């Protein structure tokens, strides 16, 4: 470390004073990290973790309130729904659908969108015009209308949900990645690589891709919440996951009719959706700050 001390930059500020005095961002987001971890554990553990069989009916025990409300018991900590199914167990079981849908949706839309964005940004010209007009057209179609059409053509179900989400969200990645590439390819180090005779493929994987990776990671994290809400909306409308499969959106739809006499049946999955969305946003923000290389200069 002696060398490092010797080389310690004291005039780092020279041409780029921006962010110079920025305070270090808040620490690791324990809360959101924990919620996301819990989501993953529930999704993997699934039925093994649930106190009750999430699909088991028990009509004698229907509409049990949560434990802290009057008449609630520890047997069903978050209460039961109209068919006497344990809400906690169903939320844990529904986590799997949420996570599977968001992972697939993110991987596919991220992959397709980023590739399109890179091609559009790096090569420009006709490829750029074509891809970006496609993005514009895509973005002008209301996602729910698209979902209705697709659900009518295909069968409602997990695959359809994923397809609808991918078709809707690849444009995000395409636009943002294209913008990043456009600015990255103007960097002097890219020009210098060309001066040294480095080929396009190498420039792509050495100088462009690593610098986009962070953006994509942040975007993906932020998207988890979006995708989970979207899946819930589709399932709520009956266009997504179908009974007897379990999903948070479906739980909301089932409980809607009993809103007045069993508020918990609709509130509990709603809270689960909210917590996961909030966590993914907070975590994404934190990730963006941590991965910003400028932060390391401070």
């Amino acid at each position, binding site marked *: 470390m002696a060398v490092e001390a010797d*080389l310690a*930059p004291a005039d780092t500020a020279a*041409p780029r004073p921006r962010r110079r005095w920025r305070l270090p961002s808040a620490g690791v987001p324990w809360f959101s990290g924990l919620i996301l971890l819990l989501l993953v554990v529930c999704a993997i553990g699934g039925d093994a973790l649930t106190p009750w069989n999430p699909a088991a009916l028990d009509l004698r025990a229907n509409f049990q309130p949560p434990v802290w409300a009057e008449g609630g018991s520890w047997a069903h900590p978050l209460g039961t729904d109209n068919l006497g199914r344990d809400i906690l167990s169903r939320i844990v079981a529904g986590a799997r659908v949420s996570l599977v849908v968001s992972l697939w949706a993110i991987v596919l839309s991220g992959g397709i969108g980023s590739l399109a964005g890179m091609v559009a940004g790096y090569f420009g010209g006709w490829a750029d015009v074509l891809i970006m007009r496609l993005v514009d057209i895509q973005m002008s179609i209301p996602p729910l209308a698209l979902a209705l059409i697709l659900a009518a053509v295909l069968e409602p179900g997990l695959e359809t949900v994923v397809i609808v989400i991918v078709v809707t969200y690849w444009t995000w990645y395409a636009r943002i990645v294209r913008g990043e590439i456009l600015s990255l390819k103007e960097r*002097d180090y890219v020009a210098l690589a060309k001066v040294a*005779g480095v080929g396009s493929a190498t420039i792509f994987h050495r100088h462009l891709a690593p*610098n986009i990776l962070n953006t994509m990671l942040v975007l993906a994290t932020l998207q988890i919440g979006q995708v989970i809400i979207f899946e819930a909306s589709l399932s709520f409308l009956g266009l997504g996951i179908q009974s007897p499969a379990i999903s948070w959106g479906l739980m909301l739809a089932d409980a809607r009719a009993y809103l007045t006499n069993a508020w918990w049946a609709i509130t509990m999955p709603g809270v689960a959706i909210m917590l996961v969305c909030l966590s993914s946003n907070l975590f994404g923000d934190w990730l963006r700050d941590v991965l910003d290389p400028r932060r390391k200069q401070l």
Partner: protein
Amino acid sequence: MLLEARHLVKRFDVGGGLFRRAGQVHAVEDVSFGIEPGRTFALVGESGCGKTTVAKLMLLLERPTAGEVVYRGRAVSGLSGGALTEFRSEVQAVFQDPYSSLNPRLRVGRIVSEPLLVHNRMSGAEARKRVDEALEVVGLPRAAAKLYPHEFSGGQRQRIAIARALALRPKALVLDEPTSALDVSIRAQILNLLSDIQEEFGLAYLIIAHDLALVEHFSHETGVMYLGALVEWGPTQTVFDRPRHPYTQALLASAPHPDPDHPPPGDVIRGEIGSALSPPAGCRFHPRCPHAFAPCDRAEPATTDTGQGAWARCHLLDAGAPAPVRRGEPARAGAAGRPA
């Protein structure tokens, strides 16, 4: 001549949509010069004069609209791929911004060795040795290879950029404002380093700069650019001691001296640099020229031999009229006399 520009022209289409074009920026108009090994040619001018575009053309980062870049007597501007190997391994560059010219995600060793790995199929150990050598030349410790660019100051980053340019043992360097992003005391370090390297390895330099004092100090030959065209060029001493073009005279008169006893800089020319989108007819400088007369707004001035190896493009010199303005004399309007 090692590296030559022959009648380079670069025009960019601007505005408009896909199918129509709104106009053309005349970035570079008929620029020619040549650089010998071990010598430095400087292009000097104000922002927007096209000097950086010339640098990009010389590095084959842009394709000229007309004219060619000639390396070792061979036109290289039309070539691509393998035919360029020699040029790509022998002509390297150092740019202005030491922050943007180093990839923040690569270690210094990787950055410096990048050009090596493209051209020479050398082993890792050999490449490391060459990196160590290059770092030593620019005065950085070997341990620097293991660090990331953000761990260095601006001046040190510029040293890394120079080491990278030297790794291939090139014959020519294009230096685009290599010190203007650096602090005053660091500039001298870098300029001296570049001079030492030139002396030791006999490199040819093309330096792009706006700082006249730096150019006078650093270069053997100088070309003064205005709105895309060379207006005066020749040995640096001749151009700076006996500037014949009114623009060169104005530039020299405008530069402030770090000496309160020196006459303050003189405001000689009016207005600001014209638009490269629609350059003025005739001599490009005539709307600002204190000596403009009849032919200036109609005909382009011819190239005149002004003696001692220098050339200029000005109607005053065609007419053979005014006495050259010597250094020290106030180069104010009227001093050179307006031809009747």
